[in-house]
Every structure is written in C-alpha cells, then in structure tokens.
C-alpha cells in the first residue's frame, strides 16, 4: 500500500519535473492548487435555517458576510445588503420570529429567466450568481426577485477584496461565499459566524447528498420554504416558520 503510494508520488514528481522542463513554472500553480473540477450538478448547495435558534437582535451573520465579501455594511436605501435580519410578528398569534434573509438560490430562479444578457445564471451546483462581466445594470432581475435579495451598486467602489470583485453599475447578491466553495471549503461566512455565536441556526451543505447533515435534518424536522406557493424550489429551507 505504502509502496504503491510512493510509486504514485514518484510518478507524479517526475511528471512534474518533466512539465517544468517543458514549460517553466506553468504547472506549479495547477499542482499546488486544490480545486480543478468544474462545479457539478451532483452537488446542490443549500441551507437549513432554524428560526428557533436565531436570536432577535443578533446580526453576527450580517457582519460576517460584510467582512467576508468586503461590503461596507451601510443600511441606507441605496446601500448593498447581501444578507439582512428580518423580524417577524405573527399577526394572529403575536409570536415574534427572527431570521436571516438572503438570496434563496432557487432551482427555478426568476432573475435568471428575465435577465436579457444571461448575466444572471445558475451554476451547476445550484448557486445563483450574477456574471458581472455581462451585467448591463438594467435591474430587471431586482424587479423579478420575490425575495428582494438583490442590490445594485450605486457608487464607484474602491479597495474591494481581491477574491470578491464588485463594481458600480452592476447587480449583486449573496453568492453562498462562492470563493470559499471554489477553494474546497464547506461553510459560508454567515453559517460560521452563527455557529461561533453559539446559535447554530444556519446549517449549510449539499442537498443532493442524502447523508449530508443538512439533508438529514431536512428529512427529520418540519421545514418550509419562503413563498413556497411560487414554486421556485429555493435552496434555502426554514425551520420554525
């Protein structure tokens, strides 16, 4: 077994050396880097949000998202908000519920249907994104989104994070921390922060894997999707609503 491994290692390093000889430096990056498989539809990223665990007034998830994605965190009408805390009061029972609201990563996203250039798109792994190289800033997707999940960048930006480019005149929204996923990580900034705060209200994972924690829990507890009546099959599930 170990001999086998060694041999594979040897083959790999000699291949690498050969490669280095042919094209100096070219292969270094490709080998050093983890993920070279394209996003695949065997994965569907999603979340289960347990509103019973979500604490009223806590906005650690929002802060973490802003930090991760380099958002300034303003809450004026023209400021970008990828995730927001919503406080709900049931009109009949008076019960107060608190939950984080963001792009629901629909399987049938209306924003994708209406986008004239195809800049709004759904990745094979279910993440709904805006290709900001194609976005012309018409804002039709914002009109179409039933969740008001999208923001338009109203001002020129400076000092964006290298991994999270953003810019004036284009529409953006929650990416499920795609930069983390593409590095092979398995959690989003908001879920991580929520766990850190001890609430564990946000469970992130692969909905297509029946053995993932999130899939198991969705099978066990009663959960709903927001505006399920629209039939958009969102990737975000909510518990306790």
């Amino acid at each position: 077994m170990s001999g086998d491994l060694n041999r594979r290692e040897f083959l790999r390093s000699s291949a690498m050396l050969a490669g280095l000889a042919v094209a100096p430096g070219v292969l270094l990056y490709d080998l050093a880097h983890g993920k070279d498989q394209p996003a695949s539809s065997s994965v569907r990223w999603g979340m289960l949000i347990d509103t019973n665990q979500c604490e009223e007034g806590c906005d650690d998830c929002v802060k973490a998202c802003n930090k991760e994605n380099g958002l300034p965190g303003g809450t004026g009408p023209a400021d970008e908000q990828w995730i927001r805390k919503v406080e709900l009061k049931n009109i009949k029972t008076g019960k107060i519920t608190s939950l984080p609201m963001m792009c629901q990563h629909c399987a049938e996203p209306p924003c994708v249907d209406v986008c004239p250039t195809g800049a709004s798109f759904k990745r094979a792994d279910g993440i709904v994104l805006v290709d900001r190289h194609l976005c012309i800033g018409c804002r039709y997707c914002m009109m179409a989104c039933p969740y008001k999940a999208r923001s338009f960048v109203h001002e020129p930006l400076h000092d964006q994070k290298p991994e999270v480019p953003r810019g004036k005149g284009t529409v953006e929204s929650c990416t499920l921390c795609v930069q983390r996923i593409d590095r092979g990580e398995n959690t989003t900034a908001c879920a991580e922060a929520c766990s850190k705060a001890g609430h564990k209200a946000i469970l992130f994972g692969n909905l297509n894997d029946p053995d993932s924690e999130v899939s198991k829990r969705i099978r066990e507890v009663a959960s709903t999707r927001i505006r399920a009546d629209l039939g958009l099959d969102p990737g975000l599930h909510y518990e306790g609503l």
Partner: protein
Amino acid sequence: MKRLQAALLAMSLLISGTVLADVSVPHLDIGKGGHCVNDPKYMKLNHGDLLKRQRTITVHQGVIGRYSLIRCVNCHASKVNHSVLGTNSNFCQGCHVYAAVKIDCFECHSSRPETVSETLREVAK
C-alpha cells in the same frame, strides 16, 4: 498668415512631442519576479483573450485557473506602491497607456495583491 501657420505647426509638434515622451516605451515594473504563467512573449500577445476566457470559466464553472487575474496582480504588483496601477511604470497601467488600451477590470478587481486570504497562502506553497 504664414507665420501663424508656422506657429501652429511648431506648437502641435511640441504637444505631440511631449505626448510621445509621456508614453514612450515604458520601463515596466515587473513586480515580484519569478516565472510568468506562460511564456512572456506569448503572454504579451494573448493575455487579453486568455483573461477573458479564464473569467468565464471561473465564474461559471468555479474552476480557479492558470490565468486568474488575482495571480497576475499578486506577481506583477510593484514592490514600491503594491499595485499594478498608479503610475506609468506600474505593470498593467504602464503598458496600456503606452499601447492606448483601456480596460475596466480594476473598477471591480483589486489592483493590489491579497495579503491575508487563503489563496495567497495556497499559491505561495
């Protein structure tokens, strides 16, 4: 009239002269050094197309590739001002001013190398 023409001619020569001086073949600050992601001659000719192809692949398929813009910036940012832009000796700006090419990439993309992010650590390995 003749004199006016001559004066105008002299003036335009002067102006174009200074403009030319401004954009004469720049001495580019290559940045950190090492080996480029491909043959520099090849890069010089094709980097625009390579970057644009790369961005589609990365954004739509989630594959971080050889021609990642983050990597170019990480290597080519000047050690003086830590950027690929800013002055006409900075790598991307200097050559583009010379070649009269306009790009909008850095309205969104950072022109400075990442300092803390994971990717840097990965690439540095």
